[in-house]
C-alpha cells in the first residue's frame, strides 16, 4: 500500500473518531470547514514525516492530493451510509450514542431535517471530498513552503539573540494584557472574557518559566526573576474569582507535585499512593475546622463539654497539625516498604492510597463517609477575612491563590536546597543503584524515610489548603486519579525540575479548565495529549539540568530521549 494512501486512511480513522464522539454536531454549521482545517494540520504533520525528507515540492503536493482525496472519499462514503440509514428510520443511537441526525447533518452542512427525510443533495458529498482533498493540498503546501526550515531559521545566531529578548519580554507583555482586560470598562472579548483571561494567565505564567530559563545566570537572571516574582504576586489581586479559583488549584497541585518530585524525581521511589498524605492533611484540617460534620468528634466534644458548632483551630493554628499528621503518615508508610523496589513499591503505595480512601469512605462515624465534611472554614489573616485585611482588593479565591503561590515558592526553595545538599546527593545515588549507594555509605533507611516524610509533609500542606478552598471534602476527592494527576504533571513538566512542575500543573490542571466549554471532550483530549506528550518529549517540557546533561551526553548508551522505532 502506498504511503500516501496509508496517510489518507489514518486521517480517515482520526476523522471518523471525531464523528463517532460527536464533534461535528457539537461544532454546528461550520463543522465541515473546521474539520477540514484540522485534517489539514494532521496532513501537514504526517506528510512532513513521511515524504518531507526526499520531497521536491511536486512530489509532496501529489502526496497531499492522494492522501486528502482518500480521506475525503471515505468520509463521504461514511456520512452517506449514516445519512441513508438515518433517512430510512434506522436508529443507530442504541449502538453509537452520537450518530444522530444533528451530528451527521453538521458534517454534511445541511439541516437535521434533511437527514431525517433522506433529502441530502449529492452535491454535499462531493463538497466533502473537495474539502478534504483541499486540506490534503493545504497540508502539503505547508510542508513544501515551511518544511523543516523553521527550526534552522530561528536557530541563526541573530535570531537567537533577538528571540531570546522577545521571549523574556513576553510574560510582561502578557501580564499587562491580562490586567488590562480586567479593567472595568474594557469592551474586548465581551462574551467570553473570563476564559480568555484564564488562558492568558496560564500562558503568562508558563512563558515566565521559559523566560527565566533563557536568562544568563547571574545578575540578569536575578533581575528577571525578581520582576517575574512581583508580576506573579500581583495576579491574585488583578484576577477575578473564576481565574483565581483555577490558579489556586493549579498551585495546590504545584505544591503536591514538588513534594511528589522529592519521592519520585529525587529519590526514585515510584509512589502511586501519594494522594493518601494529601487526604490526611485535608481531613486533619477538616476535623478541627468543621468538627460538627463528624459525628464521632462531635459527640466526643460534647462529652468533654466543648461546643462543636465552631472551628476548634483556625487555619494557621491547624497548619502544624496537618503537617505533622501527614509526616507521621509518610513515615508509617515508609517503614514497611523499605525493602520493596520499583513496581512492587508502586503497587503497595497504590494499595495504601486506596486503603486510606476506603477508610475515609467507610469510617462513617469519623469522616461522615461519602457525605463528606462540610463547611470547612477558610483561612484568614489575624482573624480577618481576605477582603477585610486587604480592604477589598483580594477575593477569597484570590487569597487561596496567593497562599498557594507563596507556599509553592517556599516548598520549591526547600526542595531545591535539599536537592543540592548531602541528602539530595544521597537520594540521587540511591536512585541510581541502591546497593552501590549503601556500599558507599548512604544510610538507606534514613534516606528513604526522609524522602517519604518530606514528600508527605508537603502533600499535607497542599491538602489543608485544598480542604479550605473546597469548603466541602469527600472521600472521592482523594481517588487514585489525584495521585495519577500529580505524577503525570511532574513527568509532563520534566521530572526533577521545579519549573517543569509548574508548567506541568499549568498544562494539566489549568488548560482543561479553559476547555470547559467543550467539557465532554476534556478527558479524552487530556488523555490523548498525555500519550502524545510522552512519545514526543519523554523527558518532559522543561527537563531538569541533570537529566538534560544525561540526555545530551549519553545518546549512545541508553538513548533516554531518543525515539527509537524498531521497525516500520
Amino acid at each position, binding site marked *: 500500500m502506498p504511503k500516501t494512501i496509508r496517510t489518507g486512511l489514518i486521517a480517515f480513522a482520526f476523522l471518523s473518531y471525531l464523528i463517532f464522539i460527536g464533534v461535528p454536531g457539537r461544532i454546528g454549521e461550520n463543522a465541515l470547514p473546521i474539520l477540514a482545517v484540522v485534517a489539514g494540520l494532521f496532513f501537514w504533520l504526517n506528510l512532513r514525516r513521511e515524504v518531507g525528507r526526499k520531497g521536491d515540492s511536486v512530489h509532496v503536493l501529489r502526496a497531499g492530493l492522494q492522501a486528502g482525496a482518500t480521506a475525503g472519499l471515505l468520509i463521504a462514503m461514511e456520512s452517506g451510509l449514516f445519512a441513508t440509514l438515518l433517512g430510512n428510520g434506522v436508529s443507530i443511537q442504541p449502538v453509537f450514542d452520537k450518530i444522530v441526525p444533528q451530528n451527521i447533518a453538521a458534517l454534511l452542512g445541511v439541516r437535521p431535517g434533511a437527514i431525517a427525510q433522506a433529502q441530502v443533495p449529492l452535491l454535499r458529498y462531493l463538497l466533502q471530498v473537495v474539502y478534504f482533498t483541499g486540506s490534503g493540498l493545504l497540508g502539503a503546501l505547508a510542508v513544501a513552503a515551511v518544511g523543516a526550515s523553521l*527550526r534552522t531559521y*530561528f*536557530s541563526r545566531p541573530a*535570531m*537567537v539573540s533577538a*528571540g*531570546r529578548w*522577545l*521571549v523574556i519580554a*513576553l510574560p510582561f507583555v*502578557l501580564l499587562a494584557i491580562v490586567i488590562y482586560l480586567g479593567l*472595568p*470598562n474594557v*469592551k474586548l*472579548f*465581551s*462574551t*467570553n*472574557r*473570563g*476564559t*480568555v483571561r484564564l*488562558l*492568558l494567565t496560564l*500562558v503568562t505564567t*508558563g*512563558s515566565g518559566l*521559559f*523566560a527565566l*530559563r*533563557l536568562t544568563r545566570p547571574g545578575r540578569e537572571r536575578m533581575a528577571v526573576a525578581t520582576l517575574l516574582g512581583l508580576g506573579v504576586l500581583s495576579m491574585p489581586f488583578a484576577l*477575578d*474569582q*473564576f481565574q*483565581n*479559583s483555577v490558579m489556586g488549584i493549579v498551585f495546590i497541585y504545584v505544591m503536591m507535585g514538588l513534594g511528589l518530585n522529592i519521592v519520585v524525581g529525587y529519590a526514585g521511589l515510584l509512589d502511586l499512593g501519594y494522594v493518601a498524605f494529601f487526604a490526611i492533611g485535608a481531613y486533619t484540617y477538616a476535623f478541627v475546622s468543621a468538627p460538627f460534620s463528624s459525628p464521632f468528634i462531635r459527640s466526643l466534644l460534647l462529652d468533654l463539654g466543648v461546643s462543636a458548632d465552631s472551628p476548634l483551630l483556625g487555619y494557621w493554628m491547624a497548619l502544624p497539625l496537618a503537617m505533622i499528621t501527614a509526616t507521621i503518615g509518610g513515615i508509617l508508610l515508609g517503614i514497611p516498604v523499605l525493602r520493596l523496589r520499583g513496581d512492587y513499591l508502586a503497587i503497595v503505595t497504590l494499595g495504601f492510597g486506596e486503603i486510606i480512601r476506603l477508610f475515609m*469512605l*467507610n469510617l462513617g462515624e469519623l469522616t461522615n*463517609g*461519602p*457525605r*463528606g465534611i*462540610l*463547611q470547612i472554614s477558610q483561612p484568614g489573616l489575624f482573624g480577618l477575612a481576605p477582603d477585610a485585611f486587604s480592604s477589598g482588593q483580594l477575593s477569597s*479565591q484570590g487569597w487561596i491563590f496567593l497562599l498557594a503561590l507563596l507556599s509553592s515558592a517556599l516548598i520549591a526553595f526547600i526542595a531545591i536546597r535539599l536537592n543540592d545538599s548531602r541528602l539530595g546527593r544521597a537520594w540521587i545515588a540511591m536512585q541510581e543503584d541502591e546497593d552501590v549507594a549503601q556500599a558507599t555509605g548512604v544510610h538507606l533507611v534514613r534516606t528513604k524515610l526522609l524522602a517519604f516524610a518530606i514528600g508527605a509533609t508537603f502533600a499535607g500542606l497542599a491538602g489543608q489548603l485544598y480542604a479550605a478552598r*473546597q*469548603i*466541602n*471534602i*469527600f472521600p*472521592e*476527592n482523594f481517588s487514585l486519579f489525584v495521585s495519577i494527576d500529580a505524577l503525570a504533571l511532574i513527568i509532563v513538566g520534566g521530572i526533577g525540575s521545579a519549573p517543569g512542575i509548574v508548567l506541568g500543573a499549568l498544562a494539566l490542571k489549568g488548560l482543561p479548565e*479553559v476547555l*470547559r*466549554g*467543550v*467539557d465532554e471532550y476534556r478527558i479524552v483530549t487530556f488523555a490523548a495529549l498525555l500519550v502524545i506528550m510522552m512519545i514526543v518529549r519523554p523527558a518532559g*517540557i522543561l527537563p531538569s539540568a541533570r537529566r*538534560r546533561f544525561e540526555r*545530551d551526553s549519553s545518546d549512545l548508551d541508553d538513548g533516554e530521549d531518543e525515539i527509537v522505532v524498531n521497525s516500520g
Partner: protein
Amino acid sequence: MQTRFTTLGLLLVAALALAGCVGMAPVASEPPAEEAAVDMSGKVVIASGEKIRIGGSFALTGPIPDPGKDIRQGAEIAIDDLNAAGGLEGFMFDLVAEDGACDGTQGTNVGNKFAADETIVAVTGGTCSGETFGLIPILLEARIPFVSPSATNPDITSSDCDVCNRVALSDALQGVVDADFAFSDLGVTKVAVVHDNSDYGKGLAEIFQNHILALGGEVTNFEGVQVGDTDFRALLAKVGANGPEFIFFGGYSTEAGLIAQQMTEAPGLENTLFMSDDGAYTRQYLDAAGEAAEGTYVSFVAGADAEAMNADFDAKYLDKYGVSPDDLGPFHGQSYDSVKLIAAAIKEVALVDSGGNLVIDREELISAIRAVEGFDGLTGMIKCDEVGECGAGGVQIFQVEGGAFNQIAGFGRE
C-alpha cells in the same frame, strides 16, 4: 540547548495568536462580560441584551445519567416556555447546565463554579442528595438560592439554610410509607436493609429501618455497598444466612437491578421480596434486573398529575428530543416546576433601573422563593413553606409486571 528554548518560546508566541483565535470563537457556556456583573454588592445587574442566567446542576454522568439528562431537558423546556412567553421585561432566560455527576465532589466543583460566576441568579438542582449537599455550603455563602427537583434526603432543607429549597418530597415521607407498605400490606416482619452509601440511599435506608423497628419488625442486616459495584453475591450470601423475608435497597437503578437479579441466585433468598426507591424507578432498573425485576416493588415521590399541562409538556419534549420523557426518568415534571418556580420568584423582585438594566437583589430573591404560593405546576399546586419544602403530591408504590411499572398503592389511588 538555548536555541531549543528559544524555539519553544517562539512557539509560545504562536500559542498566543491561537489564544486570540479561541477568544474570537463563541463558546457555549461562558461567564460573560463584566459589565453585566455586580458592582453593587448583593445585587445582580443584567445589562439590556444580556440574559438572566440560571445555573443547573444535573447528574449527567455517574450512577443515574438518564434521569439526569431527563431533568436537564425538563429544565430546558421550562426555559423555552419562559422565553416564548416573552421572558421577563424583555430579558430572556438562559440555563447554564453543569454536570453534578450525582456526587458531593462534583457538586462542590459545580457550586464553586457558580459562586465564582457573579451573573448566576439562582440554581436549579442538584439531581442527587449527595450532589446537593456539596452545593449547599457554597451557595449559602455566595447567597445564591437553589431549588432542587429531585434531592430527597430529609436534611437538604432545614431552618439553618435559607437558600435551600426543593420541589421533590422528602424521604422522611417515602421511607415511612415504604416501611408501612412492607409491614402492613405485604405483612413482612423480618427484613434486611441494604444501601449504597450515598447520602440519598443511606439516608432513606435509615429512615426505613427506623420505621420498621418502630412498627415492631425485625431488621436482620443493615449493609452497605458502593455505587458502581457489580458483584453483590458475597453480600447477598451473608444476608441470606439470616433468612429475611424482604430486602429493602436504598440507592440507584443499576445497583438495585443487579441486587434484584443476583438475589435469585443467593441461597436463603429464593422467596424473599425486593423493594427499592425512586432512584430505581427507571428503565435502567428494568434493564439491569432483567426478568428478576418481575414482582419487585419500587416507590416514587409523585406529583399530582395535571393532565392537560402534562400532555402539552410531553408533546414539546417529544418534539424537541425525539423521546418520550418517561423513557429517560421520572423527575422531568419537578424539574420544569423548579425552573418555573425560580422564574416566578425572580419576577417578584426584579426591577429595571434607569439605565435599562435588570437589577435583582439576592436577599430579596431568597425570601421571594419562600413566599411563592399557589403556583400551578406540572406536579400540582406548588407552595413553599418556611424551610423550603415546595413539593406537592405523595408517595406511590409500584410493582413490576410484564416489564413495566404498575401502580398498586399510594398517592392517587386511595
